[in-house]
């Protein structure tokens, strides 16, 4: 039976489809009688749940009062949000001196300004910006938050951080306005862009040195009042622990994962045991170990404060989890990628850094961000060993005499805080996935 096409079949619009609102409703919610009934029942349940929440939290909620007793007088069933407002500063800053809260705010703003160029178009040298943030920002923030006398090392690092901050910011502004990078800009403005390379380098180094010396001399003229870490608390402390944890978990995890896959038996066995040890123990145990056992192994007279011990524990614990996530990503890279990299002459670090790791990390973005979210939430465990993180502060409210017994509102507020932060992270990870996807880009 021979067949020969005689006329073209024109393309037609698809039948009732999911792209229109009506079509979507019909297909997904009211397809059959059974699913229609189910839809209606679920809608009714949602309505009552939302209504109860609305009545408790909003319409019957009390926003202004001086104590829980006053709240009850105004509304016996409503939420007493006034307690949250009374403790607002503590929830965010812990017991940090109230006159010095600007230091925490400034630290946050500096971090945002420093890192914002990473997301701006046309800015050059983003890798350097990222590295400088990780390497130098901790010194700047560390001194802002703790204050006190500056040792010579701290003075040098602080000055370097300030110089670097201004350089990256200037670089970002120039780049964003379409002027290339900072170095090219300086060379152009000084008319040295045609000068020999050596002369250019000398001039740039001179500018850098002058800037550093100026900042160094300037910072000798002032110092901040010391604030001991025991006064840190609230969301600020949560961010400090989680921030350092996140910033160190990824590099630590990458190194451990590579170590576990290493061909050198000593490295492999060490990394594997380290990972397995930390993964087999609950975080709370690691935290207790860090605060009680760790000092036993240290030489006499060597004292680390509890916060530092906790941060080290969080970092190690999460690096081990991250290592397994990264390793899973590495397993997904076909052997041909290594061979392709080898045949153009790349060595081990070139292959890993340029070919394998970028792909492995891209595959693993959902899991990596998942780990980060878990890390942020796990920091609430430090309240058990007596640090006043946001959860501990919220629970303290119920022990404060005017607000005695205020449990629900504080926990609901805590849940909302965590939800906002974690949901934002999750959304950002989804955005990153789409942005970095090269397979389906057409």
């Amino acid at each position, binding site marked *: 039976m021979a067949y020969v096409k005689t006329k073209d079949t024109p393309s037609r619009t698809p039948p009732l489809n999911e792209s229109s609102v009506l079509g979507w409703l019909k297909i997904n919610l009211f397809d059959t009688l059974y699913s229609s009934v189910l839809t209606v029942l679920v809608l009714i349940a949602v309505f009552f749940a939302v209504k109860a929440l609305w009545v408790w939290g909003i319409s019957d909620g009390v926003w202004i009062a001086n104590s829980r007793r006053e709240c009850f007088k105004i509304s016996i069933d409503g939420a007493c949000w006034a307690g949250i407002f009374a403790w607002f500063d503590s929830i965010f800053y812990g017991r940090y001196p109230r006159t010095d809260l600007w230091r925490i705010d400034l630290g946050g703003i500096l971090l945002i300004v420093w890192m914002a160029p990473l997301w701006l178009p046309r800015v050059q040298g983003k890798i350097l910006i990222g590295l400088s943030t990780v390497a130098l920002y901790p010194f700047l923030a560390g001194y802002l938050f703790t204050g006190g006398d500056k040792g010579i090392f701290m003075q040098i690092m602080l000055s370097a951080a300030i110089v670097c901050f201004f350089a990256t910011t200037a670089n970002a502004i120039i780049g964003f306005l379409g002027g290339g990078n900072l170095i090219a800009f300086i060379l152009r403005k000084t008319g040295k862009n045609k000068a020999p390379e050596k002369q250019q380098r000398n001039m740039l180094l001179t500018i850098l040195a002058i800037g550093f010396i100026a900042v160094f001399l300037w910072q000798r003229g002032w110092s901040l009042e010391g604030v001991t870490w025991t006064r840190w608390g609230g969301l600020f402390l949560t961010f400090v622990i989680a921030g350092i944890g996140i910033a160190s978990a990824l590099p630590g995890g990458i190194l451990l994962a590579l170590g576990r896959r290493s061909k050198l038996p000593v490295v492999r066995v060490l990394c594997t045991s380290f990972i397995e040890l930390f993964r087999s123990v609950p975080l709370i145990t690691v935290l207790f170990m860090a605060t009680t056992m760790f000092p036993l192994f240290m030489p006499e007279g060597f004292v680390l404060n509890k916060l530092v011990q906790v941060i080290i524990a969080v970092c190690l614990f999460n690096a081990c989890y991250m290592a397994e996530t990264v390793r899973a990503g590495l397993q997904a890279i076909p052997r041909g990628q290594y061979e392709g990299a080898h045949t153009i002459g*790349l060595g081990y670090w070139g292959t890993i850094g340029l070919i394998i790791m970028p792909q492995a990390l891209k595959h693993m973005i959902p899991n990596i961000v998942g780990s980060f979210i878990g890390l942020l939430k796990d920091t609430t465990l430090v309240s058990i060993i007596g640090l006043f993180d946001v959860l501990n502060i919220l629970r303290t409210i119920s022990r404060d005499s005017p607000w005695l017994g205020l449990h629900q509102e504080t926990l609901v507020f805590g849940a909302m805080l965590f939800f906002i932060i974690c949901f934002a992270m999750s959304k950002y990870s989804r955005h990153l996935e789409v942005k970095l996807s090269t397979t389906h880009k057409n």
Partner: protein
Amino acid sequence: MNNSKPEAVQGQLVSAASSEIMIDLNKVNKWYGAFHVIKDVDLVVHKGERIVVCGPSGSGKSTLIRCINHLEKHQEGTIVVDGITLDKNLKNIDHIRTEVGMVFQSFNLFPHLTILENLTLGPIWVRKMPKAEAEINAMKYLERVKIPEQADKYPGQLSGGQQQRVAIARSLCMNPKIMLFDEPTSALDPEMIKEVLDVMVELAETGMTMIVVTHEMGFAKTIADRVIFMDEGEIVEENEPNAFFNNPQHERTRLFLSQIL
């Protein structure tokens, strides 16, 4: 299937072989576990010589050429490439890999980089070439494989034939002295085989030293100075193409040719 054969099939290319030795394999042996994949293989390849290796699957032909740039480790015998002996010295291995380009059946392009970045990666990071120069160079090779317009796309957006041509260009960007091809057209649709073979024929015309593992016999007749037939890890027969195809000596070769031609 006529359209899958390169046009240059009618005329055979003039040999560019010189007396200088490029690759010298001496009694090379390799095992996978207890399985003896390469058995006492001796092979000398001169500069400019083009060699086609064929044979049934599992005969060790891919393994053999992968030993030449040390993607596979041989256990006995010596391999000398461009005067450098392959041994445990990592520097030698890295050096040889920059001299020997390789094209795979599965392309092995880097999917997270654009075509242009795929091509410039080696020159920039291994040869330390300035970026602008590497890009000009890369565009030159993209034009040679006839896809300069795809430079900013990602490998996943290209057809198989285009990807394989990019892979060839990527190797050429390193300016290699030897090119190894491991079944470069086996993963391609029939319509795309020709475009890749055409590029390879053009490469052969430039006098490149080439070792090609392939089952494209028309291509072998066109470019090969010598055809090598392997079976069960051994070189069974080796001859210039006319004699090899028209007058095979060994029984195993005759059986093989009767099945594929």
